[in-house]
């Protein structure tokens, strides 16, 4: 069971890597989700069409798997599900979403742009950013799950 989830993780990771490679090979762009999507919403210029197409592709990946009825998901404790349920209520999600948007906007990237593409480019900025957001996220989980115990 645990081995299977690790294997699915690695396979999914390879697909994400192929996506990043394809975007670089064809369009010469970094596959950073926060950059692509915030650019789609707020930038005007020649990039809107491929960014919109990327967004449709991103959503249709899990969407097509759901429609096809393939249980290829890796949701913890539910083999048939492809998409997990949010663990927090709307208020926490509102605060978290704002921090994720503000943080990835100011820090010029998220898990994909810094974590995947940046580490693969051996960029010092991305390595530092990835180290910071992973450690701060671990600390946040520690405080909210073990010190405040479900208060958040």
């Amino acid at each position, binding site marked *: 069971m645990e081995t299977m989830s690790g294997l*699915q*993780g*690695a*396979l*999914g*990771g*390879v697909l*994400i*890597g*192929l996506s990043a*490679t*394809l*975007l*670089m*090979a*064809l369009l010469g762009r970094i*596959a950073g*989700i926060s950059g692509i999507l*915030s650019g789609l919403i707020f930038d005007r210029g020649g990039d809107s069409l491929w960014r919109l*197409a*990327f*967004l*449709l*592709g*991103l959503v*249709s*990946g*899990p969407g097509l*798997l759901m429609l096809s009825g393939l249980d290829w*998901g*890796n949701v913890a404790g539910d083999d048939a*599900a*492809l*998409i*997990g349920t*949010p*663990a*927090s209520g*709307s208020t926490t*999600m509102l605060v*978290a979403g704002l921090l*994720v*948007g*503000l*943080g*990835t906007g*100011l*820090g010029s990237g998220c*898990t*994909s742009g*810094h*974590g*995947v593409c940046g580490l693969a480019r051996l*960029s010092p*900025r991305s390595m530092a950013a990835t180290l910071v*957001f992973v450690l*701060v*996220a671990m600390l946040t*989980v*520690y405080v909210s799950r073990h010190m405040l115990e479900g208060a958040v």
Partner: protein
Amino acid sequence: MKVLAGYLAGLLFGLGLAISGMTDPARVIGFLDVAGSWDPTLIFVLGGAVVTTFSGYRLVWRRPAPLLETRFQLPTRRDLDVRLLGGAAFFGIGWGLSGYCPGPAVASLPGLSWPLLMFLVAMMSGWWLARRGE
């Protein structure tokens, strides 16, 4: 062709997120929860993605330019600043609170719920705010 390229890259990315289980915030929080019952899945996802991208980029960069554009657009800065590290810290708090980063949040749209919708709207507001400060 550029639109097709964008769609295919997005599709692969979305399939990767769903198959790896990153569309499940419980998996992500399980990885971040080092003091709880630790879930290593995210390490395999990140490892698979970084190794593939590292190799793929080096193959791709043997050519002078991408196939459908005139040049590669890569970040050139190498210095660290408060904006980068402070932004990463804000992002880390939000990621830890919810278990969602931007990719999985958007890829989870086929299973939309109220909390997820709140997250997505707030995330777009955050992007807007970050741009206002420029």
